[in-house]
């Protein structure tokens, strides 16, 4: 499933970039992330609890940062697996600034497997949107708090 979109954050680009590349912040951006620990260069192990009302589950996985070209581009690769299958996201973030605001363009792909893929397809579009919206909402909040 392709994911692409643009979000505007009311903060300068350097700041947004710093947030997006800081593992401690990423842990707060990823919805449901409970734990994030280093596990190699630019790679982190994560524990997540993803909850959509009744549907909830614990995931473990990795977060990897790559293609880091401050302050304009970086790539985030998230893998996760749990009892209902796996969900792997991989996407590039491109940041541009205008009038003190940062536009974040993201483009990537989400691969899900197992139970989530075969029963969740009806809800997948909406769920992905929700997670992304949450991610950027958290980012906005972090930026505001800086």
């Amino acid at each position, binding site marked *: 499933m392709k994911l692409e979109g643009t979000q505007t954050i009311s903060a300068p680009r350097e700041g947004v970039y710093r947030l997006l590349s800081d593992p401690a912040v990423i842990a707060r951006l990823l919805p449901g992330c409970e734990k994030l620990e280093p596990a190699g260069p630019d790679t982190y192990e994560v524990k997540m609890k993803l909850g959509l009302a009744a549907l909830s*589950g614990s995931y473990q996985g990795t977060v990897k940062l790559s293609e880091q070209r401050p302050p304009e581009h970086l790539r985030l690769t998230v893998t996760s697996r749990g009892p209902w299958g796996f969900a792997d996201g991989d996407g590039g973030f491109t940041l541009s600034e205008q009038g003190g605001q940062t536009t974040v363009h993201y483009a990537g792909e989400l691969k899900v497997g197992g139970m989530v893929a075969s029963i969740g397809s*009806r809800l997948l*579009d*909406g769920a992905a949107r*929700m997670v992304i919206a949450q991610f950027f909402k958290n980012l906005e909040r972090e930026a505001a708090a800086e």
Partner: protein
Amino acid sequence: MIPASFEYFAPRSLEEALQLLAHHGTEAKLLAGGHSLLPMMKLRLATPRTLIDLGRIRGLSYIREDGGRISIGAMTTHAEVESSELLRRRAPLLPETAAEIGDVQVRNRGTLGGSLAHADPAADYPAALLALDAECVLTSQKGTRTVVAKDFFVDMLTTALQAGEILTEVRFAADSPRTGSAYRKLHHPASGFAIVGVAARLTLDATGKGSAVSVGITGVAPKPYRATGVERGLLGQTLDAKRIAEASAQATRGVEPLSDLQASARYRAAMAAVFTRRALAAALGRAQKQG
């Protein structure tokens, strides 16, 4: 096919249920009819640690009218809504919608409150609740608060229910004279959920103009919504087929339709317009019949 283990409570009173809910926090799920929750649990997409069964609490299942306001207890089944003489007379939109949910067996067990609290983006009831301008009564140990339907549905599978709250009742005004309503739905061929579901209610004034028009749409977006663009195009206007068709074109204004295997966003948008028109046309016919 087998749910994971959980701790089970069957409180006998609402107070007891609220207490349990407060105590167990987010690890607990409420069990009403179980027709949203149990399938998810059997697939282990949901694995709540604690289940609080509301089925033993007396007094959560009722349909009554008081001074033009109708109130329905959260544990009222779809079948009870569907067959309620009171509702058929005073707010026929809701029974018409209930009749479109799932199948007979599902309607015999599924409840109004359970369905609303689950907030499936393709559930039928939310469209009707929006069109009825209903209020949801949320009860917690701190007391009750009411949330209008528009604010109750927050996002996909997400409602305004806060930790410790139980949806206990739904209220709305009974139809005033010269009111017509209809629910029209495009069924998902497998699950029966709404690919598009449109609930319309309109009231005509003495001159045949729309004095109140409301349209609730489900299935199209991550959460159900009021088609305000459509409503604005009809309010205060002399209603006829042509005007309804024009207004219905606004059915998805301001929303980004969902896309899945059965229906792309483009098709959903087009069907939202078609079914809005059909629902409104049927509602108009019914309102005129009363005139």
